[in-house]
């Protein structure tokens, strides 16, 4: 089980990377409007693609 000494910190680092990506996405405004995109999935491709 010694490998855990390496794996756990690595796992936490990977988690950190994802948090970083989330922060980036938030700063870009991807999470500003959560309601409209939810409705957009019902629309045909021609509309969704245009945006």
């Amino acid at each position, binding site marked *: *089980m010694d490998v*855990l*000494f390496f794996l*756990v*910190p690595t*796992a*936490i680092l990977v*988690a*950190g990377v*994802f*948090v970083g990506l*989330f*922060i980036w996405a*938030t*700063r870009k*405004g991807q*999470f*500003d*409007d*959560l*309601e*409209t995109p939810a*409705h*957009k999935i*019902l*629309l045909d491709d021609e*509309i969704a693609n245009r*945006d």
Partner: protein
Amino acid sequence: MQTLHHNQPGQDCEHQEHCEHCGEKVIVPSLLSLKDEDKIFCCNGCKTVYQILHEKGLDNYYKLRDQTGTRDQLSPVEDSDEEYKYLDQQEFLDKYTKKTKDSVTIDFFIEGVHCVACLWLIEKLPDFVEEVLHSKLNMAKSIASVTIGKNGKLSKVAKQLALLGYRPHPILSDADIERLAKEEDRKMLIKIAIAFTCAGNIMLLAYSVYGGASGELARHFNWYSFFLILPIIFYSAIPFYQSAWSAIKSRKLSIDIPIVVALVVGTISGLVNLINGSEHLYFDSLATLVFLLLGARYLLKKSQQKSLNTTEIASFFSNRTTHRWNQQKQQYEDIHAQFLKSQDIILVKSGEMVPADGLILDGVSNINNSLLTGESLPVKVEKTDYIYSGTTNLDQDLKVQVLNTGSDTRLGKILQSVEAGWNQKAEIVTLADNVARYFVSTVFILAFLTFIAIFFLIGNFEDAFTRAFTLIIITCPCALGLTTPLALTMTLGKLAKKGMIIKNEQIIEKLSKAKEIFLDKTGTLTHGNFQVSDWLDVDDKMTNLAHMSLVFALESRSKHPIAKAACKYIKAICFQENQTLLTYEITDYKEHAGRGVSGTINGKQYEIRTLAKEKNDSKTWIALYEDKKVISEISLEDQLRSEAAEVIAAIAKMGIKPAIVSGDAKGPVEKVASKLNLSNQDYSYQVGPEQKSQLLDAHPAAIMVGDGANDAIALGRAYVGVAVHGSVDISLRAADIYLSQSGVRPILSIIEASKETMKVIKRNLIISLLYNVTGATLAIMGYITPLLAAVLMPLSSFTVLILTLASTRKLNRIN
């Protein structure tokens, strides 16, 4: 003497058609003849929308709408002549739009957005309106951002949107406030993300230790847990520190205080224990706590953002085209009403709303004052009379000299005093506040006593400290902090979807505590417009159809409300009985402003005007005269809504005493009161705006239901003010609640919803208190281990959460 038609058309259900566009029952049909079939619509507005969509090949709209099953939420499209020309004016563009080299962007608040089909249609704007480059809709706020090219005209875009039934209001949002709000939202989201990541990982590590990891591995995991909680303590939990600090400064005991104590003490003692090698670590419980609470607060904030804030609403006021005389160009130009100045000369066309207070220089017409004074009958005005902003000019164009504009107008002053009064409106101490106060003080006292007691009884500092500390953690008002905002948020959201917009959560609790309700008559309990109630053909020489046809021929050219009511009624009867009107040719047709119409048909002189003979009921009687003899008598009244009696009775049953407060005369008010079974004490008539607000001051637990500016002050002063289907802009500024669907039923719905919500909250509070009492007992007795704490806390939170969600399902059944 034949007496006909006492029922309103549409009430006998045999011949029921439904509008192709909005699904409403059709009473007066608008027909569209297409290649293969005739389509029926309830009004011209709906018909126009259908036509436009059909011609541009956008029938997909109906497919999408039916797929998402939101058909029953539509309401008929309103006809409007508004040309939106003010949107093309340079002054306006400079103030309201963002410009780039090749394009202009503007934000519109769109009325009537409620489903995917609306989203689809509005974002498809570039496809069927020329020069539109981009159109993006934010469904939560109903704000569409439209970009047009250099050669585009915003007026065309707005007109097109309005024709489709989506009335646009340009909004001027304060860019700085908006930016700050957005920044704050994003920061909150990041805090939650960090809290979640750290909490999740800490839990993983902690559970492996509970599961049996030991020795070197366990030590490592525990240290990782410590480092993982640091981001939470130093970043994610900042809102709690801020809120606890301001609570302490204002000497309030809020539930954030124990949370902060738990966090700080927990982390420090955890660090101490870590160094000593003990296993009493509570990092997992604390981290989860922060995450859950932050998440709940974020959801609450988001749902509050679904309505417009006050800065955005402020720009609503007077979004109208006005025709101002330009001395240099010697013609009238179209500008936005907010750019009017005193001494300007304007033309108020028939059908338009008066944009400012002024003096009539030329013209004779009738004015509808109902927004300002509540009177339902039009008032005649002519040269040297004053007219006021907010009223509607009915028949003929008027040339007016502007005296007061904007907030100096009578309407503006009313709104200002309403908004000034907002600050004085008592904020209730909510149930949650009360519970929090007692709870927090009890917990701290108990913790302190436990510490002292155990210390003296057992003598072990560590034991005493642990027990006191676990007491604080385990009674952490996670459930308390969650259940109230959650239940309130859900209610706000559900009601908003049904067109009942409540400004903040405190109002729900206020509604449930109200003892009385004062309702305005015109427009609230009644339909607010004239409807024909009796039709008597005095002579038998002609058929009823002939009588109706004559009246229709004469009245169809007039814009007076009585004329419109008569024509609507006639068309409805014909539709119902499948008859076609006879057409007549009229020579020397004359409209006598405010008095009636006249003309010659087939050699006989016909007039329609007020019946000379006095009838002592409170109805308005007009008559069709043939060569000075009465051949038809028609009565009109502002009819009580059919569901009014039932709704009032239901409200009374819930323990809220109903009463009518109206600016109208004694007769009509008494009549309505008797129909609603209200006693002598429960109605007042000819009440002016001042008196209305005095009345409300005397009844501190009363709900006020009204509309327009004439009720604005009263609405602002009331314990709870409810604005009914009227003008969006004015209502939202004065009232706590705005009901966009017409009728009295929504009033009942919001009261029912508020009582149900409070029931759910109380129930959940009791359950979470039970949890806390159990947990506290166990803590004092020393049975709470880190494992138990880590299990119990999320458990209590989740049970309360699920209970809240399940209980609010009942709200769905309230329509």
